């Protein structure tokens, strides 16, 4: 009975997470742990058991973390291991940090054939800052290309241990997994908390479930959370009735006695929206609540914005409904209605980053069957006017036209890990993107960590694709927000026949305005079909034209022959052409096909991506 939820002695609890890069085998290792600890029998096992969403399984990305309670006997003692899954991508740094906060230890899992990647390194630093016990592990030692000695040395160098302390496992074959679990029991400290104090539990994840409403994942720090208890969210002060409290093992199990100090589990209160149960918030009891929340809560802050428009204007209500539904499960997604003269009715959406944006877009298209045009992503600019007024610009077309004094843009600290032969290529690319070199360290003989500060606006514009193509895919990137800087930024407008097309406006550094204007004007000349009149395409900063192209007028649009046998055919052709015309967007008098917008707004690299 010692290890039943609500009655477990914190001394036998071990809370840990796994820090790993995509593809380094975290899910497979987790699968083995489920089997070895006996919580999933071989018959019910399926690959990547814990990854719930289809997109996660297909992309191999774990977007939402979960916590699994695993029983484990070491020596004569029964232990409870709580494995807390962490998201592995750069956009979700804050979520990662909250997951880490729920743990005392972290398994640093690295592919023995590839070595550590930049995002893993960033998360490792987060874990070290959170004072977690790090257990370095090389995975996939069964691979012929594995170089365990080389990468053990790399890991030892990073965390300050001996290479022989690095464990070696194969998630695929299960080799070394039992030893790893024993090691977790020995090395990771037991949780410590005040069982008699008012309840305080950290929300480290919050997931919307169609049938249950919001499922909130918590780690109890102090006190006890009971069944049928009124609880309170400390950031908002809102209280709810707990309808269910339990643990995941790996299917949900109700905890009749609630959850005690050091335990990890879930609670359901019947709320329907994850924004009412935010990651990082502190749960306490409504009756004798704690006065101080656990530290570190932050409101999610969108960093990247993009306009999303239905290709068929009639789908606007469906898009709104779909965004409403997605937001139930995504507290970081923000959106508000927006009208574009060129694209019609849509939404300006804010995302944590590029991956977050891609995931949202893909879910809208796949789960809600919508066809969308998205405008080029942009960051948030803080514009100070000469009269001292301040404007936050989330849409380039709304960049103020009046007397601008200063413009501030968000800056990131970017880390690139790369084989040393590519140092030159990386430096050239980063310099070109207005990066400032902060330092460089050799992780091993031939692998380098390069640190830059760089405007976020440069990173979200196809930087990652460039990085990959210039390093034959070997470079990995991590970046985190690093304040803001003043910059000489200008708005470049694209005009068709003298009329600005809002969807094509962009804010760029003044040195790059010309290049952007020339490229965009050229692209549009290729994409927009000839009209009955000449169409000048101009790129302009304010009233100053910096690039110009011309779409020559079409001169002949008439069939030569129209005799008795041609009439029916010609009338039908006319009807078909008129249907096609309905799909055109009008910019002034210029008919622009949808495809032209889609193609002009996608960077070359992203169109390649869709081809794959």
């Amino acid at each position: 009975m010692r290890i039943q939820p609500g009655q477990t002695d914190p001394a036998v609890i071990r809370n840990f997470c796994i820090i790993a890069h995509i593809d380094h085998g975290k899910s497979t290792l987790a699968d083995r742990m489920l089997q070895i600890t006996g919580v999933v029998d071989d018959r019910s096992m399926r690959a990547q058991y814990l990854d719930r969403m289809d997109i996660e399984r297909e992309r191999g990305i774990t977007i939402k973390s979960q916590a699994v309670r695993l029983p484990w006997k070491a020596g004569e003692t029964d232990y409870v291991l709580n494995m807390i899954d962490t998201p592995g991508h750069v956009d979700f740094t804050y979520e990662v940090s909250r997951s880490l906060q729920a743990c005392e230890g972290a398994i640093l899992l690295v592919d023995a054939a590839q070595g550590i990647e930049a995002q893993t390194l960033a998360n490792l630093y987060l874990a070290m800052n959170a004072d977690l016990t790090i257990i370095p592990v090389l995975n996939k030692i069964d691979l012929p290309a594995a170089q365990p000695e080389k990468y053990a040395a790399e890991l030892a160098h990073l965390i300050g241990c001996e290479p022989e302390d690095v464990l070696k496992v194969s998630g695929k074959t299960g080799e070394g997994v039992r030893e790893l679990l024993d090691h977790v029991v020995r090395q990771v400290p037991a949780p410590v908390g005040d069982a008699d104090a008012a309840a305080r539990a950290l929300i480290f994840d919050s997931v919307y479930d169609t049938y249950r409403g919001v499922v909130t994942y918590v780690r109890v720090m102090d006190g006890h959370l009971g069944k049928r208890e009124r609880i309170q969210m400390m950031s908002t002060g809102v209280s709810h009735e707990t309808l269910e409290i339990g643990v995941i093992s790996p299917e949900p199990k109700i905890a009749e006695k609630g959850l005690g100090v050091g335990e990890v589990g879930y609670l359901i209160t019947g709320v329907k929206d994850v924004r009412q149960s935010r990651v990082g918030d502190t749960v306490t009891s409504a009756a004798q609540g704690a006065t101080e929340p656990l530290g570190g809560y932050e409101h999610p802050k969108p960093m990247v914005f993009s306009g999303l428009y239905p290709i068929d204007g009639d789908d606007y209500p469906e898009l709104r409904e779909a965004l409403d539904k997605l937001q139930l499960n995504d507290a970081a997604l923000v959106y508000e209605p927006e009208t574009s003269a060129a694209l019609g009715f849509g939404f300006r959406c804010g995302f944590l980053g590029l991956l977050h944006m891609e995931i949202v877009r893909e879910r809208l298209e796949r789960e809600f069957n919508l066809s969308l045009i998205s405008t080029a992503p942009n960051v948030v600019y803080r514009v100070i006017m000469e009269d001292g007024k301040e404007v936050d610009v989330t849409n380039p077309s709304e960049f103020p036209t009046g007397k601008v004094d200063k413009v501030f843009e968000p800056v990131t600290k970017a880390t690139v890990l790369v084989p040393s032969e590519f140092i030159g290529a990386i430096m050239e690319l980063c310099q070109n993107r207005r990066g400032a070199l902060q330092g460089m360290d050799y992780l091993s003989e031939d692998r380098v960590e390069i640190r830059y500060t760089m405007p976020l606006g440069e990173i979200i514009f196809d930087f990652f694709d460039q990085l990959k193509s210039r390093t034959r895919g070997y470079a990995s990137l991590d970046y985190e927000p690093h304040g803001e800087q003043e910059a000489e930024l200008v708005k470049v407008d694209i005009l068709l026949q003298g009329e600005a097309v809002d969807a094509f406006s962009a804010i760029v550094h003044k040195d790059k305005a010309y290049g952007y204007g020339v490229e965009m004007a050229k692209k549009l000349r290729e994409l927009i079909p000839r009209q009955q009149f000449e169409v000048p395409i101009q790129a302009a900063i304010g009233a100053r034209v910096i690039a110009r192209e011309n779409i020559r007028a079409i001169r002949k649009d008439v069939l030569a022959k129209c005799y008795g046998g041609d009439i029916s055919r010609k009338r039908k052709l006319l009807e078909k052409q008129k249907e096609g015309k309905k799909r055109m967007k009008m910019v002034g008098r210029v008919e622009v096909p949808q495809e032209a917008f889609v193609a002009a707004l996608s960077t070359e690299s992203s169109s390649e991506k869709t081809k794959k």
Partner: protein
Amino acid sequence: MPSTLPDGDPVPASGRLPGSALRGLGERPFGFYVHVPFCVTRCGYCDFNTYTASELGPGASHADYAATAVAEVRRARAVLGDADLPVETVFFGGGTPTLLPAADLVRILGAIDEEFGLAPGAEVTTEANPESVDPAYLAGLRDGGFTRVSFGMQSAREHVLRVLERRHTPGRAAHAVREAREAGFGHVNLDLIYGTPGESDDDWRDSLAAAIEAGPDHVSAYSLIVEDGTRLAARIRRGELPMPDDDVAADRYLIADAMLAEAGFGWYEVSNWATSEAARCRHNLLYWTGGDWWGVGPGAHSHVGGTRWWNVKHPAAYARRLAEGVSPAHAREVLSAEDRTVERLMLELRLAQGFPLAEIERPPVVARALADGLLEVEPFKAGRAVLTLRGRLLADALVRDLT
């Protein structure tokens, strides 16, 4: 006439027309089109319904084609009833009608006259390849009641004719015009094609000059259309020939209009010029102004009172139907009021007489077309939409905007 048939509704075996089609029969001008689906060789650009074999089965070979066509003429009378329907125009097209003996063409014309009666001063045209006629043949036609010949000249330049895979020599068409004149034909047309791969502006000027010099009273000039499924399309796809360019075609059109106008030919339809109002092709005008006509022959299209139909495509299938006493019609469409409005605008806007402004439902588009220089100012003041030279080249775009 392109060989691909449109989709349509089924036609009863009797070929009986809906009541709506027969209403007002005889109040509209009435004509006959006779399709002769034979050629000696198929030209590289041609997608017409034509065959190079002389034996295509019973009723569909050169020798017995006239009898089959006559059978359809008799059916036409039965379907259209007893109404007084004097035939204003007859047009023999193909294919190459002149591959049949002149007597065969005259025999078919005779059947039309017997059943319906030719109107006084009726226009009777046949298309002809310059190499397929001689003075005796032309005299036979003239004596049999033909009033007009239309020769497929296409070009006066040998290298252009080669790309088109035409068999005649450059000088032959002009010679044929003289022979037709000598045989007593008052109306002679030359068909020209521009924009053929390899043709230069000067080649085109030479062709126009040669055509004018030959002395016809009518010229039709068409930009080369690359139709799917032709040898020409295949050669372009393989990269052996360049795709004709629309800007080049526009230039050639301007050249044609200028040279023809200079020589006394006035345009009366986008692709047609004539020396006088009397020289205009009345049969084609009947197509363009909502007249009735019966199309005889495989794949031939007909129109009577807002019903369009078209015959089965293959000559053998066509002949079999007639032998069995069944209508050779393949499918038809009964035009809605909206269809008829669209067709009227689509056809009449191409004519020099234009379209009445009062009947156009979108005044702002008309005003813009005037401002853009697509419509003539003077006729506009008088209430008609008449295309300018530039407007003629953009007629389809304007029709799309106006409907």
